[in-house]
């Protein structure tokens, strides 16, 4: 399942990482190298084996429905790059 540069471009887009066109091919080589090594997993017979969902055997705990958090506007915005009037802001999104 070798990656071509189009796939690398698509993956980079999905991951929202800018990759210059010139970097696509070397990146594809690098990723193919790793994926090729990973594919030794094909040797393992996993027929009928359940995928692991959790390494610890325990049941999901549930939280009581209580309001005990929030009201932290200052803390929430403290590290924001460009807050305004209590909001985070980003370049305008066109719908």
């Amino acid at each position: 399942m070798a990656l071509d540069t189009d796939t690398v471009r698509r993956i980079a887009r999905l991951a929202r990482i800018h990759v210059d066109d010139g970097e696509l091919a070397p990146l594809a080589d690098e990723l193919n190298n790793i994926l090729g090594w990973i594919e030794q997993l094909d040797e393992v017979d996993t027929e009928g084996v359940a995928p692991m969902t959790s390494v610890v055997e325990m049941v999901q705990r549930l939280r009581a429905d209580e309001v005990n958090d929030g009201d932290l506007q200052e803390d929430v915005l403290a590290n924001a790059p460009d807050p305004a009037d209590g909001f985070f802001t980003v370049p305008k999104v066109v719908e």
Partner: protein
Amino acid sequence: MSALTDLTIAQAGDGLDKGEFTARELTDAYLSAMADAQALNAYTAETPDRACAMADASDARRAKGAAAGPLDGIPLAIKDLFCTEGVLSTAGSHILDGFEPRYESTVTQNLWDAGAVMLGKVNMDEFAMGSANITSHYGPTINPWKAKSGDAAGKDLVPGGSSGGSAAAVAARIAAGATGTDTGGSIRQPGAFCGIVGMKPTYGRCSRWGVIAFASSLDQAGPLARTVEDSALMLQAMAGYDPKDSTSIDQPMPDFAAALTGDIRGLRVGVPAEYRMDGTPPEIEALWQQGIDWLRDAGAAIVDISLPHTKYALPAYYIVAPAEASSNLARYDGVRYGLRVEGEDLTDTYERTRAAGFGAEVQRRIMIGTYVLSAGYYDAYYLKAQRVRTRIADDFRNAWDSCDVILTPTTPSAAFAIGEKMDDPIAMYLNDIFTVPASMAGLPAISVPAGLSGDGLPLGLHLIAPAFGEETLFRTAGVLEDAAAFDARP
């Protein structure tokens, strides 16, 4: 009396209790050692004012007879993956430039509650992705050890990773102990490279709340310290049930230090055949045999065991960990904190921010993780890896029928020079070949410094115990430590 910074945590605690010195004096000793060891680049943020204030508070408690326990007044370094309130917390990444959390991770809060003193934040591989501490935005940390011969002689060596700053700081006596996190070996491997003890508890022992996530199903905090006893003392304070982490385990907390009885008579020690891998250097094999002999001499029964899927743990790890990371790191988008590089529009802003903010290895893993989760590949990669993971866990489950603890080497080599293996990701990944299987199964494991390589660099032996078997782990590690009598210093 030796220098205050040479004391173990247990010894320092003793001295504080006896009034031989104050926490402030101990802290000052570390702060001045830190100033002398800047070249190691171990710390990314030093907090001397906070350290002094915490030390003074500790002294005040002790004066009232209200010391909080064995960690009260002990100066520690904190891996930069832990969020610490009001102190730069970056995970070694450019993308968290300037990030000062308004909250304190549960593990570090537990330490402060136990009276420990914060010296600062220590360096690490970016987002804990690495085995050499060379991917940090803040530059590599240098291993305080130097090779006496061989190819690496005269060169700066890596401290291992990702908790490289932690391991280097403890080995260089610029912290009495340090927190680390271990996803595939990130505590144990740098522990081995730096000649100290590195311990990863059972998944769920330490809360992940406030620890910057790399791979959620694998990440686990643990201590790096100079002795097994110190590790036990630190874990005692770090661990505990936390309702804020859904994967935190509500299990009784044993007295870990009390488990160090020195008595392993009748203990069954498993030696897995599959860890004898082609290409492992003879000195590693020899040290492993030495460890087997030490434990046998101490009265343990040595049992040959099989963990058939050992060699698949690493490739499976390199699916699961990047997959989870690709999702965990999606929040670093330049909107709410950290770096933002404005682009032409929102998408461009995202892409520029993340391209500039993440280093090459992190980008590589995000790409791999994105790919293995993407439509059409999920079953073949991610699901397959999680099935293999079940097999790995089953291997261990079967092994516990015939043994109580497993002994292996920690790493396939000693520390190497900075710059080596940098162009070959897989060669770098292979550093974790012995540590990853326990991570994949969520098991507690420890690396104990056990000897020196031919070039005079430390090597570790690795013990793995069943889930919640920390007491067995510490007990056996204590015996190994006594037998090895490792007293070499960088």
